[in-house]
């Protein structure tokens, strides 16, 4: 048996012995929480009461370094090579094992530190990330920046060995649950893109206040973060002073693709079909309203085309064609389609979509209405639809400014 096959056997055996059965995800079942609740997000403020097995799974995997299997062992990773990492992934998939740890630490700030952090930063942060001891949030958007991220105004001024930060961040997801923030601040007002610095700080530092942002759909993980005279040591800058724009660009692509794939997967089109069958019943399981039936078919087919496009791009990537700016179409199309889908669901529900809570409505109806409202933000967050169209026009089609 080759080394890699030997690894596969050992790996499978270990996983089978150590992965708690509740961490093997067969899709949503009655009594389960949502997948978001079942996953381990880690951090000092983690509440494990809903998913105690998740903590067991995290700790066991972290001990082997398999929360970040291909990172170096000295940074808390598994030290696996590419082939071994793939085998581990395959064996986890075979068991339907959930990832032992989720969040920005592993997916965003960790990789960035590996590429651009100092040796000290890597030693300080990566092991804690791998063990799920610190949870991260991202401080990019500000009330007056929006699509024009580079116009950010939170300023950092050097005072001795510390940067002193003042300003405000918005749309900080789970800032109330995070331990550290990676953040863009303005260190030079002369240069728009060239005056931005990427910096890390502890959310427990004095001067930081976090306030959740309720949305039109109700509760949301988004927060406002107020930053008042927060002192951050110089060695918490990543990638050098005034080099934050380059750091942000490296990460922004990640975020966009995550959001589009999240929305592409999350809500299945069949839900629209089932709703239409229930609320607009026709003969033999058909949808009784021919006009809506056409709309349901159109959206179902749109989803088929989107999925085919994602698959096609993936196959082309495997053949060595690097995906370029045309991936903006995923963000655009997936989010617009999701909006259309929820809009149609409301039309299907009719007056039963009018509820907020309480009497007169089914729970499922109330939920769809909330999700519909939330869906309206899909084409705003992570780069608006308009920004995606600008990118396509300029960078793919080469249309002039």
């Amino acid at each position, binding site marked *: 048996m080759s080394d890699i096959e030997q690894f596969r056997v050992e790996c499978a055996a270990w996983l089978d012995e150590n992965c708690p059965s509740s961490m093997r995800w067969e899709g949503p079942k009655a009594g389960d929480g949502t997948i978001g609740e079942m996953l381990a997000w880690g951090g000092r403020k983690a509440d494990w009461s809903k998913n105690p097995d998740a903590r067991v799974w995290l700790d066991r995997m972290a001990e082997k370094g398999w929360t970040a299997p291909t990172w170096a062992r000295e940074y808390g990773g598994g030290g696996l090579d590419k082939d071994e990492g793939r085998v581990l992934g395959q064996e986890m998939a075979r068991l339907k094992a959930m990832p032992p740890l989720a969040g920005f630490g592993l997916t965003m700030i960790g990789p960035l530190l590996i590429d651009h952090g100092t040796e000290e930063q890597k030693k300080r942060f990566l092991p804690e990330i791998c063990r799920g001891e610190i949870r991260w949030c991202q401080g990019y*958007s500000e*009330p*007056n920046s*929006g*699509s*024009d991220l580079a*116009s950010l105004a939170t300023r950092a001024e050097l005072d001795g060995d510390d940067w002193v930060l003042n300003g405000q961040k*918005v*749309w900080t997801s789970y800032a109330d649950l995070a331990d550290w923030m990676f953040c863009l601040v303005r260190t030079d007002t002369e240069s728009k893109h060239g005056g931005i610095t990427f910096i890390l700080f502890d959310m427990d530092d004095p001067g930081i206040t976090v306030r959740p*942002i*309720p*949305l*039109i759909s*109700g509760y949301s993980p988004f927060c406002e973060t107020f930053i008042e005279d927060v002192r951050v040591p110089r060695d918490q800058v990543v990638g050098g002073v005034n080099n934050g724009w380059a750091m942000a660009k490296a990460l922004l692509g990640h975020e966009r693709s995550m959001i589009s794939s999240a929305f592409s997967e999350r809500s299945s089109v069949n839900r629209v079909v089932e709703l239409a069958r229930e609320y607009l019943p026709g003969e033999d399981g058909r949808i009784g*309203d021919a*006009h*809506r039936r056409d709309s349901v078919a159109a959206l179902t087919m749109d989803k088929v085309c989107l999925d085919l496009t994602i698959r096609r791009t993936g196959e082309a990537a495997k053949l060595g064609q690097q995906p370029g700016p045309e991936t903006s179409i995923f963000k655009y199309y997936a989010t617009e389609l999701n909006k259309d889908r929820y809009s149609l669901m*409301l*039309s299907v*529900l*009719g*007056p*039963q*979509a*009018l*509820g*907020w*809570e*309480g*009497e*007169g409505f089914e729970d499922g109806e109330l939920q769809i*209405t909330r999700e519909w*409202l939330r869906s*309206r*933000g899909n*084409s*705003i*967050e992570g780069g*608006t*639809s*308009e920004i995606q*169209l600008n990118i396509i026009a300029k960078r793919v089609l080469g249309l002039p400014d």
Partner: protein
Amino acid sequence: MSLVLNEEQKLLKTSAADFARKESPLSRIRAFRDSDDELGFSRELWASMAALGWPAILVPEQYGGLGLGLTEICCVIEELGRNLVPEPLLSNALLGSAAIIEAGSEEQKSRLLPAVADGSGLVALAWQERKTRYDPAVIEASASSSGDGWILEGEKVLVWDGHVADVLVVSARTSGAPGDHEGVSLFLVDKGAAGLKITRQQTMDLRNAAVLRFDSVELDSDSLLGTAGEGLAPLQVVIDRATVGLCAEMMGSAEAVFAMTLDYLKTREQFGVAIGSFQALKHRAALIFIELELSRSALMGACEAVDASADDVAKKISTAKARLSDTAVLAAYEGLQMHGGVGMTDEHDIGFYLKRARAAELSFGDAAWHRDRFATLEGF
């Protein structure tokens, strides 16, 4: 008749606009919501509106009303719609009391309408059930005769302002099955009737409404409104006119959300310039403007047709509701998108308009339903 307002109507509209601006900013419905206010509106403000004569507009003069037309009440409702004013004008004047005017006996009118006209009495119309969707014939609530009177069973939902109405006009089957045109009857039910349970509903758009449950509610013989089994025709007339009222409300709120959006386009800067200078947004704003203009024409056309008792009144009403539904949703969707992230926050007012726009769209027939009705009326 005309598609533009005459001087009296303009005056009425201006005074309603002044009233709404001064007395009922949008912050009121937010305050009612956040304080879990049990009325969801102010009886004092309602009294002021009554003093201005608004509940009396459609009540015939012999019952203490002004005997004016749909155009007049739409002038007021549009301006209230601009600020989502929560007082029960539409529900009372165009649904509850309208059913009494349309179907009631002389005795019933004389007894009930004077209080409607002076604002002291509120009447609501209970016509929708969970499966009604947009067809008032699709009801299961039933009234069986019992001695001289009736016994009422069933449930009604989305009874606008049903939580505060003194009298409820309720549709129920005295024969037939859900969907049958025959066999629908209308009844007057006192809010305090034994066996009637009224529960306030929390709607997404903060329109005040209630669920009514009738558990063997006994009704006198004189509670029947109109002829037994023939209530659908007057009910349809009432709902149709109320639909125009709803269109007027949508007109006001759609113009308000567009004004809010235009203002944002002119003041919000990105990349160093006002975002309203981006041509793609300009064109989209222009398209909304066009829809608003066409919507106003459709609304005025429906008002004119009702007030002139025109032959094509139902077609004009369906045209208006279809158009306003599409326009209101477009203006709200586009407005939210152009506001970006801030529009998604509960703190911003645009969410109220978005919710109201789709709730109104999905009430009394959405655009597709009215297109279908229009096509049927045209015979194709």
